[in-house]
């Protein structure tokens, strides 16, 4: 019952804040309280193994809370609160919050759904309302991207539905259950069909085409939840399908898993490259988000105990640092009204807190200790080498190098470099954003230094399905290959930092130089001189990559669209609007029937 109450509560809060639309303050308070209540209700009342089935006469909706749904549910709900608090600074109407709440409802319901039909129902709900959220985005292009997003996610949903019907047809059960005992290749078909929507949600190539635009054009604060939270549904789906629906995949289709891992690695690498080619902060982050989710796919593809642990941990990490980055960029946009890296720069002096947030965000994105990004990367590499797929390992490593490139481009474009004239007197991002930044910084560092805190629950999720190999306690992690003591790593870094700081302090003093006091071949420059090097940042890499950079999945998609429009033209050809031709149709119709039935007449 608790789950049903939770969903009901969310829907009601959404409706109330819709009704209170014009009364801003009251609406915001209600919305905020609703989210917080939901969060704590979730934490307190919903326990793993909770079962509830809602009979709407026509159909029985089955709910079940598992460890995985708990894990992802907490992430999603927490991120929702952060998004909500920040979003109060924007100009939003009541409908915006209604849609937001219904999106969250759909997402949580998907986590709880126990049978495929209601899973589909809630998945479609989530897609529909998040589509409306994107539709209410900030720019005029948001319509186009929202449309793209809708079509893609509905495509995924329908693929899922097809898979559902196939499963029901062959196993005579609509519940989420094993299909691996089925004979023949149909189970592979079902597997792929069931995976499709999650590949779309987690933006696995080639299903990622909607993501950059949708992330870019949705409202900045919503992107925090959109990229950090909703993509987790995709990860949850991977887990669901690979472990609950197709239990014996490692035995039956190891090559499918291999392909899946490779797909993930390619996603990580390619979108990493696309990321550092972008000049728009949000688009860059969108690609980086896709790239990070690629690692998750790799983790699932390897399908060993600690690779999956790594994948889930990385999903959590992605939720933390990607949301942090998007939140900071949202705050910057709120102040400077631009996300174009070429138009910003030098904001570190104006928005120090945001800078710190972004700094740690990118450190985690690049997987550098002691942040949350490191343990998952470490585990993933161990798993890869143990699996022995060295080329895949190298590809993943390549992807993680691209992370350095786009991370630095981001931080430099926004915060470093020369401060622009028009940004001379921007202020620090407002309270809502600052709150989110600080809150997200805590797990980012704590879980980076003491990952054991969440490794334990994640291990509970995984060890039920896979033979536990990973040895861990609060501080250490042991794999057959190696061992890391994360607190020590953090400690050493702190220690050496103290040392170098000491050297720095005892050495001679320094003075603060103006930005115009700069080595420009001893040329005197004035304030508005353009020193900021941000456009074409990695321009020379275009030359390095050459033609392959211009290849894209868009072209394949466009070919499909062309095919369909051709068919459409053909179909329209029948209705050319001439009555005589229509008469001819009727006669031809009868001629045909007479011919076909000729034998019988």
């Amino acid at each position, binding site marked *: 019952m608790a789950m049903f109450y939770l969903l009901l509560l969310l829907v009601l809060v959404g409706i109330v804040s819709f009704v209170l639309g014009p009364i801003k303050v009251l609406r915001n308070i209600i919305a905020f309280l609703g989210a917080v209540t939901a969060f704590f209700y979730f934490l307190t009342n919903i326990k793993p193994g909770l079962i509830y089935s809602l009979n709407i006469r026509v159909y029985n909706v089955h709910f079940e809370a598992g460890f995985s749904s708990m894990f992802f549910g907490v992430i999603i709900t927490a991120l929702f609160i952060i998004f909500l608090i920040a979003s109060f600074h924007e100009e939003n109407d009541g409908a915006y919050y209604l849609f937001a709440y219904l999106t969250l409802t759909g997402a949580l319901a998907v986590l709880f759904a126990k049978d495929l039909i209601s899973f589909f129902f809630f998945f*479609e709900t989530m897609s529909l309302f998040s589509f409306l959220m994107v539709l209410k985005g900030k720019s005029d292009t948001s319509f186009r991207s929202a449309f793209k997003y809708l079509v893609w996610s*509905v495509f995924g949903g*329908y693929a899922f539905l097809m898979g559902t019907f196939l499963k029901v047809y062959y196993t005579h059960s609509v519940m989420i259950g094993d299909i691996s005992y089925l004979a023949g290749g149909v189970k592979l078909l079902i597997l792929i069909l069931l995976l499709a929507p999650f590949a779309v949600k987690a933006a696995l190539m080639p299903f990622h085409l909607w993501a950059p635009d949708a992330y870019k054009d949705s409202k900045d604060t919503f992107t925090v939840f959109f990229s950090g939270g909703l993509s987790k549904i995709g990860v949850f789906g991977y887990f669901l399908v690979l472990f609950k629906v197709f239990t014996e995949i490692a035995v039956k289709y190891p090559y499918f898993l291999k392909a899946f891992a490779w797909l993930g690695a390619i996603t990580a690498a390619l979108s990493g490259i696309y990321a550092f080619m972008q000049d728009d902060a949000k688009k860059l982050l969108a690609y980086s988000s896709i790239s990070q989710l690629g690692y998750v796919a790799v983790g699932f593809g390897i399908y060993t105990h600690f690779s999956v642990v790594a994948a889930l941990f990385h999903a959590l990490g992605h939720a933390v640092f990607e949301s942090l980055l998007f939140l900071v960029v949202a705050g910057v946009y709120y102040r400077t009204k631009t996300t174009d890296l070429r138009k910003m720069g030098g904001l570190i002096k104006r928005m120090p807190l945001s800078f710190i947030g972004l700094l740690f965000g990118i450190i985690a994105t690049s997987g550098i200790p002691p942040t949350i990004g490191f343990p998952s990367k470490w585990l993933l590499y161990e798993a890869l080498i143990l699996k022995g797929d060295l080329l895949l390992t190298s590809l993943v490593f390549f992807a993680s190098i691209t992370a350095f490139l786009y991370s630095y481009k981001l931080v430099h474009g926004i915060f470093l470099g020369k401060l622009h004239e028009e940004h001379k007197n921007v202020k620090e991002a407002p309270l809502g954003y600052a709150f989110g930044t600080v809150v997200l910084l805590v797990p980012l560092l704590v879980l980076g230094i003491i990952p054991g805190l969440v490794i334990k629950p994640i291990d509970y999720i995984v060890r039920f399905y896979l033979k536990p190999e990973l040895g861990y306690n609060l501080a250490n992690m042991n794999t057959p290959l190696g061992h890391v003591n994360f607190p020590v790593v953090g400690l050493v870094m702190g220690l050496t930092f103290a040392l170098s700081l000491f050297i720095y302090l005892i050495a001679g003093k320094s003075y603060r130089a103006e930005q115009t006091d700069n080595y420009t071949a001893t040329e005197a420059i004035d304030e508005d001189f353009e020193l900021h090097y941000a456009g074409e940042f990695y321009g020379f890499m275009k030359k390095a990559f050459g033609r392959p950079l211009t290849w894209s999945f868009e072209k394949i998609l466009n070919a499909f669209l062309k095919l*369909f429009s051709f068919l459409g033209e053909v179909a329209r050809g*029948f*209705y050319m609007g001439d009555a005589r031709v229509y*008469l001819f*149709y009727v006669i031809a119709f009868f001629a045909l029937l007479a011919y076909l*039935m000729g034998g019988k*007449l």
Partner: protein
Amino acid sequence: MVSPILVIALSLFFAFVIPLLGMVSKKLPRLVPPLAMLVNLWILITNIKFVSRGAMLVTTAGLKPPIAINLAIDRFSLLFVILIQLIGLLLSVYYLSQDNRDQRFYMLFLLNILGASGIVMTGDIFNSFVFLEILEISSFGLVASKKDRKALEGGFKYMVIGAIGSSLYLLGIIVLYLTTGSLNMAEIAKLMPHIPESIKLFAALLLLAGIGVEVELFPLNAWAPDAYHGAKDEISTQLSSIISKAGIYLAARIFFTIFNGFYALKIIFYLGVITFVIAELAALMQKNVKRMLAYSSIGQMGLLMLILSLVAKRGDVFVITTVILLALNHAFGKGLLFLSLGALSGGNGEYEIENLGGNGRANPLAGFLFTVGALSIVGMPFFFGFWSKISALISLMKTNVIYLIALVLVISLVEIYYYGNVIVNLFRGEGKKYGISIVPAAVMILFALFVIVFGIWPHPVFQIAQSAAVSLIERTTYISSIIGGM
């Protein structure tokens, strides 16, 4: 009890009263149709409890069938006739708001509803032909009533093809009469086993021609786009929500009750698939929203017919229930779409997408209603369309045509594509603002309410549809209840 025959009689009476009232005052005629519908609905609703499992027999001229003409009303037909009258009522209320129509229009409208209800209620196959004629001729008039080039063109095409169709339909009836010597559906159905295959087939095809025009089956539906496009928005609503529903009923009645799931249904199956695919693909390429809606409703009818034809494979209650659900969703959703499109385009014939750009933002209510209708038609959750589409897929699965599920889903994606495109364009940029008066708004909201309320709580509709379906499936009961034991 009040005899349902009055439904027909009263409608006729009201239709002839209209011109007289027209002499008295210009305002009066438009009050008549709502009144008539109300009375009819009251009559029908009083009759609901008398319609038990079999068919309720209403004889005329005091003679028993098979000799006499009679109405045979079972739950199935009752459902349809109530649906028709209800939408008729809503539309006639809609007409209240707009004057500058001459009284003949209201006559035609009444006759149209009369024809539809007649088709649904009659138990006599020749009568069904008569009512079909009434229906079609009045529809030609209605379509052409806009009196501009497009409307006349559409009306003309409809008339040409409709005339051919109905004459073939008559031919089919004659064939059946020659072989069975009876015009009573039940009687014919009873004698069906004794008719030689070839004759059966011949008759079935001829009848199919007549019905195919109404239900917009592929080669016979060429009139539809022009007619829908040319006609006024509310007339398009009428075409899609009333006339095609009568066609559906007739198809079910004739091919299931009379021909007993005869394999001519296989032809309908293929035609349905072809219609579905071609129409939806044609809609994909449409830049003109109203034509797009026309194609989409053809496609929906195709889906309906192919689901209906599945009865041949397996006389299943669920399949018929699905047919009814789809019909309801189409009636309300598509009607809503046409009406709100009218509101969005401000009555003037600007249906091009770029002309409509931003109108949804300019007139929020109409935009919202259009969105609701579209989402229901494409079968999004929380709308009635979801349930009808899911049950369509389920009935496809039950009848072991899995590959069709894939087809239907792909085509649904196409639907999402073009409807989504329209919706997105409606809310993009700044558009022209048109006022919308209270009455049409109320009517549209009623349409929308049906879609949303039963989308969230579909159970009652399911129950009704099921009971109706049961009474169609049990054809022996139907026959015996009309002409006693067999």
